[in-house]
């Protein structure tokens, strides 16, 4: 109900009473919701825990949700409380003249300011940890894994409308499927043979644009076995929506068995491929520029 100056008790006492109720409702609801977010919803958030970068993204989502939920709840609870308690009861009298409260305003501005700046700092840091957070860092990555010299390199070659994969540590073979070993640092070298595509390995928490004549490097470390989907995330023509394939994170023994098998099966094809390079250029002496041959790193 509206606060009136002629009711029993001072307006300030009435305001404190309503304020206290709102605060209590908000506090209890925030604690409950944040606990549910962190412990019930959090373990099931996308993209999951298949890699370090995916797990890092889940952590980011949990932190952002836990910190932003109380803000949302305050708005909802204050609005709901006002609708119920301060609505006109048929007397059609004006509501109580509400004055500002500098302490409350200062507290609100300070807390929300700290929250926004803090989340900006947190988000900025999380964009680079771990090892670039699974995002394409361009041809000269700044944030590398600690043991960058021991990564499995997978070159992702996008073309309208399919991803293919080259494996420089397996003779430079090229495959149309992708398997990865578990508990391994992976370096994706992403490029394109035609227009701009985007390599988005959703469950791996890896996303990097595929630009022609450019190498875009992204890192992750596999933690769990399972299936992941690779999608193109840049509109690239009629079959953009069908430009996807599935990959698997498998045991190390299964991976090396698969890789060596593919290396043997593709030996004759590998001989026809251009020398491995981080990007490929059109061969100028072929009419139409249809042949992407060797490279300039």
């Amino acid at each position, binding site marked *: 109900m509206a606060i009136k100056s002629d009711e029993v008790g001072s307006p300030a006492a009435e305001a404190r009473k309503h304020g206290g109720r709102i605060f209590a409702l908000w506090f209890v609801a925030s604690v409950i919701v944040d606990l549910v977010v962190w412990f019930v919803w959090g373990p099931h958030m996308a993209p999951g825990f298949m890699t370090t970068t995916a797990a890092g993204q889940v952590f980011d989502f949990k932190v952002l949700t836990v910190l932003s939920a109380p803000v949302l709840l305050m708005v909802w609870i204050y609005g709901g409380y006002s609708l119920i308690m301060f609505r006109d009861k048929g007397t059609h009298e004006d509501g109580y003249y509400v004055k500002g409260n500098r302490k409350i305003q200062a507290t609100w501005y300070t807390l929300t300011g700290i929250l926004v700046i803090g989340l900006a700092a947190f988000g900025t840091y999380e964009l680079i940890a771990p090892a670039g957070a699974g995002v394409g860092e361009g041809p000269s990555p700044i944030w590398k894994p600690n043991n960058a010299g021991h990564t499995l390199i997978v070159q992702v*070659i996008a*073309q*309208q*409308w*399919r991803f*293919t994969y080259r494996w420089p540590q397996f003779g430079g073979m*090229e*495959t*149309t499927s992708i398997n990865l070993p578990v508990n391994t640092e992976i370096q994706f070298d992403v490029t394109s*043979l*035609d*227009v701009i595509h985007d390599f988005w390995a959703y469950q791996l928490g890896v996303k990097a644009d595929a630009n022609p004549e450019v190498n875009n490097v992204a890192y992750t470390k596999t933690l769990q076995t399972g299936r992941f989907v690779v999608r193109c995330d840049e509109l690239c*023509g*009629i*079959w953009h929506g*069908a430009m996807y*394939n599935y990959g698997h994170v498998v045991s190390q023994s299964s991976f090396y068995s698969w890789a060596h098998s593919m290396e043997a099966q*593709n030996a*004759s*094809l590998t001989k*026809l*491929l*251009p020398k491995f390079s981080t990007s490929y250029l059109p*061969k100028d002496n*072929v*009419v*139409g520029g*249809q*042949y*992407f041959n060797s490279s300039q790193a």
Partner: protein
Amino acid sequence: MLSKGARAGFVFVGFAIAIGVILFAVFGYLRSSPPAIAATAASSQPNTVNVVMQVDGAVGVGPHPTWVGYWVRDAQGVYHQTTIFKVPERTHVHMTIYEYDSGGPLRNEVWGKVQGVQGGAVSLNGTPVSLINSSAGNGVAHTFVVPQLGVTVPLYGVNGNAKNFCNVGPCNLSEAHNTIQFTFYSGNTTHNYRWQCFVPCGLGFLTGNGGPMQNLGYMAGFVQVVK
């Protein structure tokens, strides 16, 4: 002289007809599609169907007669300018493709490797082939690739300087061509499987992947797996 109400009625009816005609044309255009040709049951082999196609350097008909494209033959032996054909599920699909176009080097040599066909090889003019070096000979003209079924078949090109080179389709067997035959399994699921060419053969378009590469009926199509 018509009354004001009658005139308003005529205007309303005329407006409604105009809107109807416009909507009919728009939806007719949006829903238009090349015809789907049913595969022909093989008389000699059980659980097998035949699909016969030809690919020409210029289809010669329709709104884009100069575009490269496919024709599919029906049960009566009549060719239809389309890239959509129907096959039953759980069936061996025996493909015969008459290739009339000239070839060249592939943008990505990986598409020169035959994959997903029975026996691991295709028959190129009667000779089994599992890999084509597109930098040699006539190169690869086009590829028939159904990604979701794992099928990749490079189509060896013909000599562009041949005297009997077919410039405009539909072409016939007296003209220079290669015959590519292979069989793949249609799978256990009814679905419209897209297929495409991985040779950027849309000449005059950005990176060669516009025009016929992006239009059903030319270098993009569907294998409709039905019950």
